[in-house]
């Protein structure tokens, strides 16, 4: 009796899995097309900018474009001498066709005066339209009073567009 109670659900599971496999094998092109129709292109650009007093030309920039599907995250890591920044972006499609960006920023920072490593992690959820840019300042954003100081701003820009233009 106990054996039967184990075997019957197992056979049912295998049958369902087999049927599912047959279903996907039946039309892979269509499945791929369906997947690509939902795919999103996420571009993350990183910039190091001097303070406003010194001009707006970035002293360094780099960009990375990745393909993903809604709900699957993209991770970018920035490595510096005294800092390591992670940006994990997970886009979700909303019912109205807009995008909800769920992003996590992690910063590991060592200050020259400290011997300890500081860690901060922040989560954001931002509703967006396609092509709308989101900025992330992992080390904060300088204000007007601090513009004369000799330091750099680091900013990351996130842009999400559909992989296939409709």
């Amino acid at each position, binding site marked *: 009796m106990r054996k039967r109670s184990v075997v019957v659900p197992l056979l049912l599971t295998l049958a369902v899995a087999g049927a599912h496999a047959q279903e996907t094998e039946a039309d892979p092109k269509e499945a791929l097309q369906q997947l690509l129709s939902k795919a999103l292109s996420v571009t993350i650009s990183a910039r190091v900018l001097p303070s406003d007093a010194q001009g707006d030309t970035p002293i360094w920039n780099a960009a990375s474009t990745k393909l993903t599907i809604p709900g699957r995250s993209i991770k970018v890591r920035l490595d510096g001498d005294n800092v390591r920044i992670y940006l994990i972006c997970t886009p979700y499609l909303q019912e109205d066709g807009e995008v909800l960006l769920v992003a996590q*920023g992690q910063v590991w920072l060592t*200050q*020259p005066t400290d011997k300890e490593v500081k860690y901060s992690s922040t*989560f*954001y959820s931002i509703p967006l339209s396609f092509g709308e840019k989101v900025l992330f300042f992992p080390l904060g*954003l300088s204000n007007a009073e601090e513009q004369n100081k000799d330091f750099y701003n*680091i900013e990351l820009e996130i842009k999400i567009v559909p992989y296939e233009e409709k």
Partner: protein
Amino acid sequence: MERLEKTRRILREDPIGDWKEPMERVRRAILTRVPPMPRPIPAWRRQVSLPLPLAVLAAVILIALGVSSALSIARSNLGFVKITKAPAGGTEYQFAVPVDKVEALLKSVGGGDTGLEAVLTLPKNVKLVPVGAPRMGKETEFSRKKP
């Protein structure tokens, strides 16, 4: 003089009675009249009188200290979560957790499962310093000039 001598003789001849019992009786009588010595009270059973406002103030201070220390212990052991609404309609979540629980937090939010997609290396000569708390938002939220 003769009378005195006579009295002395009489007293000498008179046997001395048992004096111990009367003495004991007198001692007991004295002891019953003397109030007993107060027994020393232990420090934790001693009572003090305080004005009511002072007592209330002390109680409030003690409760406040207790609550703040409990919160501080809870924060250091359990961490805290701060959720704020961003102007663009987004939501910002700030977590503070003890170092030994960072890994668990990252796993719980799926960060540990994410494959590393891209690595960008910052220039060597640039030393970055924090100028505030991390911020994220739509480009329109920031008045800063764009290149």
